[in-house]
């Protein structure tokens, strides 16, 4: 996959020849409330419908509505298009449309723009009555002039005023027209999408927006000298497009989960927004509890009384649920917990991505609390993992944690439309009588598995407890019983592990370097590894879905490579930093777990930049960490 380069200006005309590129990123940025996101979403789905690979991700400021025209307040969206499936947000942006120069500067400061990016910026600020604003504009242009960007001023305000009297509400559709021309998007499709997006508003709105779309399209045709063509993927697999949180919400419906208890927290909340909207119609209940502890308690009570329930949260909420998780594990009550990870520790970076909850998820509960931890790697997996999680939770009578993150939560991409099967759903709670003498914890000596008794089952009456207990669920302080029951709870993980297959290596089965990842970084890692292999480097990658228990065969795989290194979005001490030795170095969280379980000297390359990893940075890390290469990063 090669990075696109922007062609030189041809004389402005209707028939500008389009440059063919295989992969390209566009950003639309503005102050919040100007609709840049809506514009990008429509552009993205039109592109998807036209057969491109698409990944869109929103650029969200930390405040709800920060002061206007501030770099830190930039609000917008990135759309990455490709002639193949796009699995991640990519590297830098090639084309940027900015509603004001400050939002643009915000992106510039974050190195979000490619050195040769094409920048289309609203120029009303150059002539703004307020002198300080004019000054800000000049300073910004001064800075940009020192870059290799190609900056094109666009009179958005002026143009939109010909159609609407408050352009603040219309610019985004003008820009959509602009982009439609540049990328040769099917204007009718765009209009359909607009109509759909505003279906709840009155028809005039849609008409107005259609006009603005045409306006932008025509302006571009008359004034721009470059167009792009990203060849379509020819595939007739039906697809649906959504973000990871929507996929989790619909996935939970597919899994037959019927109660979700949560307390709002970014970036997990949008799962419950979706459920709040549709869950009841599917027979589900969304309970917004008074806090995360209560949410866990309600979910556990619900599971105890019937089907497996679930709770949704992020780091700080995970922390609060810790005690209840121990109870569910001890009393063997199935529970699914979704943790949409964000930047930590503490409140950290609430809207940004991180993979720093792994160790807390696996080891965070006081006492010995064996349970299952999994991580989806794609938006599609966000959907399907809910069924797997629910099934394991019920089969093993334990807690299953699903670790997603802000990258999957906000990333939007198409994936094959699932072919639903009723088997994915669990049946109604068993209400048959319990045979005389059967026990609520009749652990199978070999597997530790046992059948759960559900209220309503005559003869199954018993009291579950978080205290040490015997097979009859009677409180027991006896040494032998405590050893045995601990043993049975732990055994279940070994049983699950024995059913797992070793993960598939991507690339050669052996070589110089193996990159190991988990969760949302899969797309970026594989893109980087592919690029590295294209450069002739002997590198492969491995991605883990099961973190507890770990999949089998890892040590064998690791031993076939000269070096093994994890790539994670969490913190690790850098080699060579003051006081850091191989002995005291704090490593990436997965690296650390793999070292303990395989005793292989696993290195790590991790970053906590508050953004998804960029394939190009991972590529640099690979180049810098080839066992024979010097200057390891």
């Amino acid at each position, binding site marked *: 996959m090669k990075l696109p380069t922007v062609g030189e200006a041809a004389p402005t005309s209707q028939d500008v020849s389009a440059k063919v590129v295989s992969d390209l990123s566009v950003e639309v940025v503005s102050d919040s409330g100007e609709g840049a996101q809506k514009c990008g979403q429509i552009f993205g789905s039109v592109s998807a419908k036209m057969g491109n690979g698409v990944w869109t991700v929103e650029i969200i400021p930390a405040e709800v509505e920060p002061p206007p025209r501030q770099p830190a307040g930039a609000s917008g969206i990135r759309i990455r298009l490709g002639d193949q499936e796009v699995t991640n947000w990519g590297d830098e942006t090639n084309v940027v449309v900015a509603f004001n120069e400050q939002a643009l500067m915000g992106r510039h400061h974050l190195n979000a723009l490619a050195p040769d990016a094409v920048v289309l910026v609203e120029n009303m600020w150059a002539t703004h009555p307020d002198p300080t604003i004019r000054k800000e504009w000049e300073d910004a242009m001064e800075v940009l002039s020192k870059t290799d960007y190609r900056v094109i001023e666009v009179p958005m305000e002026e143009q939109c005023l010909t159609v609407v009297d408050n352009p603040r509400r219309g610019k985004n559709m003008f820009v959509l027209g602009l982009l439609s021309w540049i990328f040769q998007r099917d204007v009718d499709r765009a209009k359909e999408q607009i109509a759909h997006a505003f279906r709840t508003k009155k028809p005039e709105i849609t008409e107005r927006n259609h006009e603005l779309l045409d306006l932008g399209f025509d302006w571009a045709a008359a004034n721009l000298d470059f167009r792009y063509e990203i060849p379509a993927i020819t595939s007739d697999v*039906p697809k649906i497009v959504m973000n990871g949180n929507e996929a989790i919400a*619909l996935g939970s419906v597919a899994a037959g989960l019927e109660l979700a208890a949560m307390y709002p927290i970014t970036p997990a909340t949008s799962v419950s927004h979706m459920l709040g909207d549709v869950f009841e119609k599917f*027979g589900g209940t969304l309970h917004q*509890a008074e806090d995360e502890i209560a949410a866990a*308690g309600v979910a*556990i009570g619900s599971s105890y*009384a019937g089907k497996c329930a679930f709770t949704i949260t992020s780091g700080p909420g995970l922390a609060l649920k810790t*005690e209840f998780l121990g*109870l569910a594990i001890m009393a063997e009550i199935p529970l699914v917990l979704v943790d949409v990870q964000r930047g930590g520790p503490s409140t950290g970076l609430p809207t940004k991505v991180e993979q720093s909850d792994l160790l807390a998820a696996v080891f965070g509960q006081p006492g010995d609390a064996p349970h299952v931890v999994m991580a989806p790697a794609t938006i599609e997996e966000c959907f399907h993992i809910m069924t797997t999680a629910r099934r394991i939770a019920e089969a093993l009578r334990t807690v299953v944690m699903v670790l997603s993150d802000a990258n999957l939560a906000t990333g939007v991409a198409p994936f094959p439309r699932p072919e639903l099967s*009723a088997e994915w759903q669990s049946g109604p709670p068993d209400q048959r009588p319990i045979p005389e003498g059967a026990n609520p914890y009749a652990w199978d000596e070999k597997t530790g598995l046992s059948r759960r008794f559900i209220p309503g089952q005559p003869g199954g009456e018993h009291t579950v407890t978080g205290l040490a207990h015997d097979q009859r669920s009677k409180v027991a302080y006896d040494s032998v019983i405590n050893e045995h029951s601990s043993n049975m709870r732990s055994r279940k993980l070994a049983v699950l592990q024995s059913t797992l297959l070793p993960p598939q290596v991507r690339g050669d089965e052996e070589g110089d370097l193996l990159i190991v990842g988990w969760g949302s970084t899969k797309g970026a890692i594989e893109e980087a590894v592919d690029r590295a292999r294209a450069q002739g480097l002997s590198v492969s990658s491995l991605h883990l879905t099961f973190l507890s228990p770990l999949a089998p065969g890892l040590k064998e795989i690791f031993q076939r490579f000269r070096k093994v290194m994890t790539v994670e979005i969490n913190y690790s001490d850098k080699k060579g930093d003051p006081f850091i030795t191989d002995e005291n170095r704090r490593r990436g969280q997965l690296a650390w777990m793999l070292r303990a379980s395989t005793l292989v000297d696993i290195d790590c390359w991790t970053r906590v930049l508050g953004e998804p990893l960029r394939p190009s940075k991972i590529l640099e890390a690979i180049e810098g960490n080839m066992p024979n290469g010097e200057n390891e990063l």
Partner: protein
Amino acid sequence: MSCSLLHAGHEDERTFEMGDYQGPVARWCSGCGDHSVLAAAQRLLTDEQLKPEDTVFVSGIGCSSRFPHYMTTYGFHGIHGRALTIATGVKLTRSDLDVFVVMGDGDCISIGAGHWIHAVRYNVDMVALLLDNNIYGLTKKQTSPTTPQGYKSNTQPRGSFLPPMNPLEATLGVSNASFVAQTAEWVPAHLFATLQAAYRHKGFSFVRILQRCPHFTSDMYEDAVKQPDLVEILSHPEGIQVEGLDKIYKSQIRHDPTDLNGARELAEDMNKIRLGLFFRDESRPIYNETRTIAKHTARQKMDLLNEEFDSYAV
């Protein structure tokens, strides 16, 4: 919880004796007030002929929270302070079950305070019993929020620093409260009548039970037990009526349980121990009935989901 409704339709030949609800010998101290509450609950279940399999006792952690272990119904001995959250989950999922919650004063009023306040507001249809011995029993005599000011404990050995929290007053201060009563474990007839009224109330029934802890606070209710005139009974045809109780408890006061402000004034003044129904309002919205949740087969759900996909189709 109007069981009559819940059990309508069921064909069930069984009749239950007191013994059908009695579990293993309770391991509370001899003379502990919890024993009487257990007996009253078992009597209630017998009277109402509740099916053991359709009845769930949920508790937190504490002496009092051992309660479910001594019943033969389903039970959930949870974690400290969180019983109400678990019970809410049970009832949200299974409105057909009768749910009772047993909590200590530390369990409900201290660590559980947030859940308690919100459970009162949710008004989920269940019975919540606060076994209030004004002390932490299981952990051996620490001050609880209801410990009288100046009363000595192991953590405040020179006496509790503050005036006690008044659970009735606080509950009455929460909007959507629908049933608030107080009784005493040493007045079995009143205890039973109160549990019955709480059970028959549709909504969240909060019952504070004054409970003796001979092991750590033997003096706490000594006088009240010895001198019935220190106790005042709230009487009203709409309230909790106990045949012949006025023989022993001469001081009675008429209180209409629909009068919220009257209830608050009675609850506030702590010079007298008042037993009875302070407030009841069956018209308050019940959280687990405020929504309409569709019922579908797995197939139907999958079909619906498939339709849903259309709006995400590329």
